[in-house]
Structure formats: C-alpha cells, structure tokens
C-alpha cells in the first residue's frame, strides 16, 4: 500500500500546529516541520494514531517534549475540528446539538440508571460507550434546566450528580477510567458551548500556572537545562581574562627557534605558549530545609542540570550540617530518585531540621575551602533564613574570598529579604551577586547578567533587586 499524498492544506495545519508547539517552548525548527511533512507522506495519515506518532517522532525530541506535544496536539485538533464545524454549519440556534435523537431515550432515564451505566463503562474501559454516556449525562442534566453555561461549574454539577467526584464515597475503583470519563465530559461540554455561542473561546496556554515554581513538569526541567547550558558557555570563558595581556606569558622556545629560520636565525618573532582557558570549578551549595521545601525541588533540578554540563562540579546540600552529594548526582540519573535519596539519606538534618547557616559555613570552610582557588565559583541556593542562629558571616566571607566568584540565589522575592530571620544583608557584601531566583525566567536572567558582565569578575550586588530594596 502506498499512502496517497496528504492534501495541500494539511501543510498549513502542520505549520500552525508547530507554531503552537513553539509557543509552548518546544524547539521546533523548519527542518522538523519538513521532516514531519515528509513523514506524513509515507504514513497512512488517515488514522489518528499513525498520524500522531509520525508527527511526534519528528517533532518531539525528548520525553518532556512528548508530554507537551500530546497536550498541544489534542488541544489543537479539538479546536480545529470545532472551528471547521462552525464554518460548515453556522447554527447558533442549535444550542442542544444532537438533542433530538437522545430525547426518546432521555424520557425514561433516571440519574441512578445513568450513574450505574457510567460506572460500568468506566470499569470495562469502553471509551466509545463512555463518550456516549458523557453526551447523555449532559443532555439529562440540561433537561433539568441546570446548565449554567460555565464549563467548570457544569462539570462539577454532573460529577456530583453521578457520584463520581474524585475521592467521593461513590467513587469508582478505577481512577484512570474516571479521569478519562471526565475528560470526555469536559470536551463535550466545551463542544456544546462553542456551538451555542458560535465562536471559539480563546486558547488557554498550557503553562500559565507553572510559571511560578517549576516542580516536576518535564518541560520546566528542560528549561532549567537550557538556562544551565548557557551558564556553562559563559563560565567556560571565565579565567581567560583578556586584561592580563602580556603579563606572565611563557616563551615557546621551539616555535621561536623555528620561526627564526625565516629571518636567518635571528629570533625577531617571539612565539609564546598559548594560554589554555582554564576549566571552571563549581561548588553548588543547596539548602534543602523545610522553609524552602518547594524551592528546593527547583534548586535540586538546577543542580541536576549543572551536573549534566560541568564535569568539575561538586554539589552540597545542607540543613543543619553540610553534606557532599556529588556522587549521588553522578550515580543516579532519575531526578525523582536523586531528590528522594538526598533528602532522606543525605545525612544533612541533625535534630531540628532547621537551617543552621553558621555551622554550615564553618563546616564548609573546614572541609572544603582548601580546595577553593582562583578558578572556583561558589553558587549558594538558599533563603538565608537562619532561624535566629548566628549567621556566621565571617566564615562565609572567608569562603567567598578564597573563591573567584560567589553568587547567591534566593528563592524568596527580594522584598522579603532581611525581614524576620533572613540574614541576606550579612552575606550580600561578600557575594559578587545576589539574585532572587524562583522561576526559570529568573534563572535565565541570572545567566544573562553573568553574560553581560562577562569580563568583569564582579556583578554589582543586588543588580537585579528592585531599587527600593538595595542593601
């Protein structure tokens, strides 16, 4: 079987779809679009599964991408079919589309029967039947005049009426099937709303919420990866300081002698050994105490991404004491497993589980700081909340002086700093830069700022903080 060429309009659709994917942060280049189009030529594109998989294989290049792809794909084609239907039969009157056919059956149907049927369908996993029942339940609840016109509210009402609300006592045994049924309900409700209003509601971006703290969203992890990759580029050139110019260069005698042959043995042209750009060494210290628990997931993902990019990276976590976790990150790849292991087996909490910065700095200074040198960059991820214990700023300064650069990323908004037990002011003077950092965007800002201030070894402290909150 040689599949026929897809119609020309599908190319437009494909480009639109890829546009939406890009808007959600997938790196879909022209070459991917071309590949997808070529793939559709050789796959039977009339079947949904083949069609979806063919585009996915050419466009989504990681597990995280794939998750986003599936969501966007569903949204896109649902909206596309609805838009098409609107064009074909502009029928604003038909608020109850397909209602006529169901009416006969509706008359003798009770809510209990329906609930029974729904439970059965969910248990048997019959998606076609579920879809039918979803329509039926909407029609039934619509008949009782309980339609509010807001999808979320209607969904809630039907769910309650059928006794399939999540966690409710009447909940079916199969949460997966229940979720599926709910999805169909929601879709059906949306479809009705669209046809009754005669226009499409604006598309909802996928990640409105996750703009705040990226917790486990795979595409957010990918964003962290990208920001870190740029950080790596930036740091790779650190230590290759152009201002040092002619000082301290070593003569390459062999090359000079060879070059002198051209001038009759007189070394006119001196050759020097090339300066090797030194590889940066990075020390990351990450607070994992309960006060930053939501942020520490983000921070651990930052550390995780850093480990991908830097070979000379040592990572530490701390609460009351500090503990090196470089090995954990090197051995374990799965992010969930790493964070689990670190928070349970890191041996960082002693008794209280409250951060003790003073102790952490003195331990770090004692154990590690002899390794710090002019190539070292220290990055601290923490909220600087000392729980009333001494901040140990002197030790921190000693650490910062040994390292070439020290940065502090704080997961709290800058306006919260120095209120209560936050000791940001004690640490900030020793740092080359302090930043608020609780979204991937801010992480990127941090990288950008590093990049802009490139040659200078220092970034002006609090350069990112708003004017009112300077130190």
């Amino acid at each position, binding site marked *: 079987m040689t599949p026929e060429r897809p119609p020309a309009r599908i190319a437009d659709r494909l480009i639109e779809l890829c546009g939406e994917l890009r808007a959600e942060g997938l790196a879909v280049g022209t070459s991917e679009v071309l590949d997808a189009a070529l793939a559709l030529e050789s796959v039977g594109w009339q079947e949904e599964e083949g069609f979806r*998989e063919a585009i996915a294989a050419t466009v989504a290049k990681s597990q995280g991408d794939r998750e986003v792809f599936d969501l966007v794909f569903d949204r896109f084609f649902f909206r596309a079919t609805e838009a098409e239907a609107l064009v074909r039969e502009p029928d604003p009157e038909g608020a109850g589309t397909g209602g006529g056919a169901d009416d006969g059956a509706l008359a003798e149907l009770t809510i209990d029967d329906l609930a029974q049927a729904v439970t059965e369908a969910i248990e048997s996993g019959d998606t076609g039947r579920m879809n039918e029942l979803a329509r039926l339940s909407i029609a039934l609840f619509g008949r009782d005049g309980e339609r509010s016109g807001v999808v979320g509210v209607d969904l809630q009402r039907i769910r309650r009426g059928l006794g399939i609300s999540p966690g409710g006592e009447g909940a079916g045994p199969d949460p997966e099937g229940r979720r599926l049924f709910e999805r169909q309900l929601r879709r059906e409700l949306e479809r009705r709303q669209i046809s009754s209003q005669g226009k499409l509601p604006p598309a909802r971006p996928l990640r409105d919420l996750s703009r705040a703290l990226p917790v486990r969203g795979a595409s957010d992890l990918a964003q962290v990866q990208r920001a870190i990759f740029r950080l790596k580029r930036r740091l790779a050139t650190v230590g290759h300081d152009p201002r040092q110019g002619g000082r301290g260069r070593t003569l390459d005698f062999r090359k000079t002698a060879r070059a002198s042959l051209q001038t009759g043995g007189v070394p006119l042209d001196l050759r020097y050994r090339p300066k090797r750009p030194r590889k940066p060494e990075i020390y990351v210290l990450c607070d994992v105490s309960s006060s930053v628990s939501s942020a520490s997931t983000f921070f651990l993902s930052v550390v995780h991404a850093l480990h991908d990019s830097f070979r000379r990276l040592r990572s530490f976590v701390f609460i009351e004491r500090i503990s090196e976790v470089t090995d954990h990150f090197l051995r374990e790849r799965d992010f969930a497993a790493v964070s689990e292991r670190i928070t349970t087996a890191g041996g960082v909490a002693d008794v209280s589980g409250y951060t003790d910065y003073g102790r952490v700095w003195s331990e770090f200074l004692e154990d590690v700081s002899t390794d710090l040198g002019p190539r070292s960059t220290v990055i601290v991820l923490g909220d600087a909340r000392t729980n009333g214990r001494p901040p140990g700023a002197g030790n921190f300064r000693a650490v910062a002086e040994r390292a070439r650069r020290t940065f502090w990323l704080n997961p709290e908004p800058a306006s919260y700093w120095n209120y209560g037990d936050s000791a940001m002011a004690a640490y900030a003077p020793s740092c080359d830069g302090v930043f608020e950092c609780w979204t991937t965007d801010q992480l990127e800002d941090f990288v950008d700022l590093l990049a802009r201030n490139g040659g200078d070894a220092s970034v002006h402290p609090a350069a990112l903080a708003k004017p009112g909150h300077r130190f």
Partner: protein
Amino acid sequence: MTASTAETPESPTEVGEALAGASYLADDTVSLVAFLAQRLGRPILVEGPAGVGKTELAKALSRASGRELVRLQCYEGLDEAKALYEWNYRKQLLGIQARATAGGEDGEEVGIDEIFAPEYLLERPLLRAIASPEPVVLLIDEIDKTDQEFEAMLLELLSDFQVTIPELGRVEAETHPIVVITSNDSRELTEALKRRCLYLWIDYPEAEREAEIVRLHEPGIDEALAQRLVEVVGQVRELDLRKPPSISESIDWARTLVLLGADDIDEKTLRDSLSTIVKHRSDLDLVAEKVGPGLGRGDRNGTPGG
C-alpha cells in the same frame, strides 16, 4: 533522498512483521518510527530505561533487513581516532622505507600524497558504515557516555552521511545506512543532534507483550507461568529500586525457572531465584520483604513491618 540499492519497506506493518520475524516484538510506535527512519533516511534516537531492548532493536533491524550490523560502543573519552578513522602510521613508515630501498636513487619521489592513500587508512566503525558497498545498520550505542564534542563530530555524518578526511577529501556514503543511536539518558543530548534524529522512547512493555517476549525467547516456559512471572516483575518494578529489572532479566528469570522446574512462583522460588532479576543488596532485601510475602498466600496487601 533514500538510498539507491536498499529497498525500502512499504508500510509500518511490513517493518513490524519483519522485526517479528527477527524475533523482536515491536509495538506500533516502534515499527512506525523504524519505517519512517528508512523512508526519510534519518537516524533514530532511542531512549528508555536500561534493558528494554534499545540495542536489540538495532540488531533486529539488521537481521530483518539482512544488513550487516556495524556497532560503535561509546565510552567516556572516545575520540575520532577510535570512532572514525586513523592513519596507520607504522604502515606509512614502512611504505616510505620500502620505496626508498626499492626505488634506489629516485627514493626522493616518495610523495606525501602517496602515503596518505586509502590503503594506509584504518577504518573505524563510523567510516566503515559509510564506506561499505553493502547497506548496513549502524548502531551508536550509549551515546550519552561520550562528551558533547563527540556529538558535534557526528553531525556531519548524521545529516549528510559523509565524512571529510582532510588528506583525502570527502567520503560519501554509497549506500544509506540505517542509523540507530541509543541513549540511557544519563545526560541531556545537544539540540543539534536531536534535530537530526527521529525520536523514539521505548518503555517497559505492557504485561501481555512482555509475556509474549518472554515466551518467544524461552519457549520452554508455559503460558500461565509466563503470565505470573511478568506480573511479579511488574510488581517489583513498581518498588523504588536502585535498578529495576529489565526485559532481558525477565527472560533470564524465565530460563532460571524452567531450569529449576518450577511451575508456580511462590515465596521460596522467589527467594531462591531473586538474584537473576535484582542486582543490588538493598534491592534484594526490599523485594524479599515487599513482594515475597504476598506470593505465598495469594494476597498482596499488607507488608510485615520489619
């Protein structure tokens, strides 16, 4: 776009059947991507947990299409000389000397060009795959073990199927290899590499398919036992283990059970043969504690505390 000599399959189903013929049970996505790879001439980037048959896919493709398998096993520090080509400098030295003695007075004629000829070239897997007159399957295994610099080197090869040797010029592929790249996801691969590949994620198969796979590789096991085995392995995978059992370990276990003559898996059999599927001390204890007790009595809830 596609190679001249290799015949390309007509449909994903055909690929799936060919793979099944090479004793690899592919699901729809796998056969679709394998099909697309041959149609579009793109490499396949395969990711997934260890031991789900990523490498096996390449081997099966080679068996199914009757192509030779050229394998490049990646490791940290792998460089061009080991992966692409190297000049055989000993032979070059000998060549110069031989000509100098044989040629006598016109020994000066030994030109640089002559010692940089193909016969002094040591072909490494990548060049071999490109230069082979017969179409091959090229397997680049565990690419995540190499440095990012190595990936950059692969780009020319993967997008244009050619290799540039400064002294010789460009070596272009005479036939189009099927390229399979596997990664265990131990680091993020570069965008540039991903852009050139089709992406395929292989996960642990569903219970039914895994039972089929087990029976395919160990025909001696009866259906009920295979079903039971896959069920237990599924339970073990759900635990938070350092290394969950892979498909190949399920197969090993099936072989062990057949050797032991077991006809059901109870707590004792599990304890005796556990080491074939679980390979860490702490994992062993965890599985024995959580899964073991459920097997003997047939109820799987409730784990004894301790």
